[in-house]
């Protein structure tokens, strides 16, 4: 057992959702790191599917800039089209899980990656959807990864729904025309792990990292956070696990990724 920071636990916990042999959709940013950690630790035989049309089959020693970075080429088993990956294997339901970055996610699992403040005159304008809205629409089980630990990362309601989660909760997602077998599965964050109430679809605290302070977690999200009847205590990482997570973050940093807690 080692010292670790919650951000590292977030990456590791996400990695553990991936089973060996899975084919999964990997969104930009932390999902890429999580899939690399999984591949090294316990899931070498996974297919990582990217919106750019590539499908990665083996471990790439270099951190790609994005999932479309051609540095991945020697590790692609498939180099096709967005029409085949995002609008094909994902949309037709052939991928069991998907992972997406969730810098701002609300209590119904809606993600905003478009703007802070009013859409017409934003305080901060962000990138926008890319494939994020499609991931929200078509992912069979969508895991949302957040490195955030404060209320602005977990508002009660996002300013703009880039990635549709459960919208206004209850059956609102179904009424809006989304398939019943799709939707958010979990928010894995630096605060802890959230699941969604089967009826209200509100996110509740389901799992906590070692040494977590539940009251502090509750104070760090923008709604009155409920918790599971019995909170799941996520196990302390092994030395090997933390080593691999840190190596992958080092590799990301060497490719100019900004890593929380590092200069």
């Amino acid at each position, binding site marked *: 057992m080692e010292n670790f920071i919650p951000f590292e636990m977030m990456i590791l916990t996400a990695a553990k959702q991936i089973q060996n042999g899975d084919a999964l959709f990997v969104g930009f940013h932390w999902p890429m790191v999580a899939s690399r950690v999984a591949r090294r630790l316990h899931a070498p035989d996974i297919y990582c599917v990217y919106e750019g049309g590539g499908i990665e089959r083996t471990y790439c020693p270099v951190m790609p800039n994005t999932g479309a970075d051609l540095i991945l080429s020697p590790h692609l088993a498939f180099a096709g089209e967005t029409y085949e990956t995002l609008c094909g294997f994902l949309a037709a339901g052939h991928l069991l899980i998907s992972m997406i970055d969730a810098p701002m996610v609300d209590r119904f699992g809606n993600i905003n990656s478009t703007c802070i403040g009013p859409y017409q005159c934003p305080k901060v304008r962000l990138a926008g959807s890319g494939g994020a809205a*499609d991931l929200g629409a078509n992912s069979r089980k969508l895991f949302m990864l957040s490195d955030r630990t404060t209320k602005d990362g977990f508002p009660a309601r996002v300013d703009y729904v880039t990635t549709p989660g459960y919208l206004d909760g209850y059956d609102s997602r179904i009424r809006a025309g989304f398939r019943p077998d799709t939707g958010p599965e979990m928010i894995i964050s630096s605060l802890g792990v959230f699941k969604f109430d089967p009826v209200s679809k509100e996110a509740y605290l389901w799992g906590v990292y070692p040494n977590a302070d539940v009251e502090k977690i509750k104070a760090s999200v923008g709604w009155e956070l409920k918790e599971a009847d019995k909170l799941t205590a996520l196990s302390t990482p092994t030395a090997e696990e933390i080593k691999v997570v840190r190596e992958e973050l080092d590799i990301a940093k060497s490719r100019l990724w900004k890593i929380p807690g590092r200069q």
Partner: protein
Amino acid sequence: MSKVVTMKEAIAEYIKDGQSILISAFSINQGYAFAHEIIRQKKKNLTLIRSSGDILADQMIGAGCVGKVISPYVWNPTGPSSAYCFRRAMEKGIPHKVELEEFSFGAFCMAIYAAAHGLPFMPTYPLEGTGIFQHRSILGEDKVRVIESPFSGEKVCLVKPLIPEVCLVHVQRADAEGNAQMWGPLGDVRGTANAGKRIIVSAEEIVDQAIILKEPYKTIVPGFRVAAVVHEPWGAHPSDVFEHYYRDIWFQAGYAEASKTVEGFQKFMDEWVYGVENRAEYLKKLGTKKQEELRWRGQDNGKFHSL
């Protein structure tokens, strides 16, 4: 019949102020040489259509060439960082206001598919409840329409064909007649290269037609669709081209840093766009050492680890 012209000639002849233009390819094979010549020729009020806005869109917005943008997102993937010119335009109207119509990448692909395939519309994946559905600008009601499926009664979102006046696409190689070959992951390029009324190709290499005929499965645009061909080695730098060169993330990071301010952006553009006559001069400025570093190394990419 040879359609080979210089980039200067191609842009002067085929790109008019106020047109809708699409610069093809998702993240890779970005037509920077096209964009920079458009900027040098001070084209105005273009509608820029792109699957991934990226730094290329940021530069065209910052340079004041663009009145409207239709795209799923605009950013700088290295870091990642903001696309600062885009931000300034959206947050503060600098250098001027830009009208933005946002799609999901999937809906964008479907609108392009309808255009390339002569279909009256395309269904797309559910969008109700998203900001993309709620906020409409250039396309208004026609951005996304909802019908009940006549098969199941379920709600279905439809998008109409998105047909640019000119599509610009950078590929690995082409013959003089315009048969254009690209291979590797293609993103949306098969759709976006072919969606427009007119197509201009730039290529890393101009090759004999015999080379094209040997591997016809690499052709993504047949010659008869192409109006002009430009020979433009490294035409996609700082993005990457399969089996030619890797992405220059250091250049992208440098751009992020420079473009944080209007002055920094101006300086960058003076240096890399206005200050060079054409792509050959840009390349000279980039230097042979950098080119060597970025050059494709087949199945061996390990070297980058230490960079």
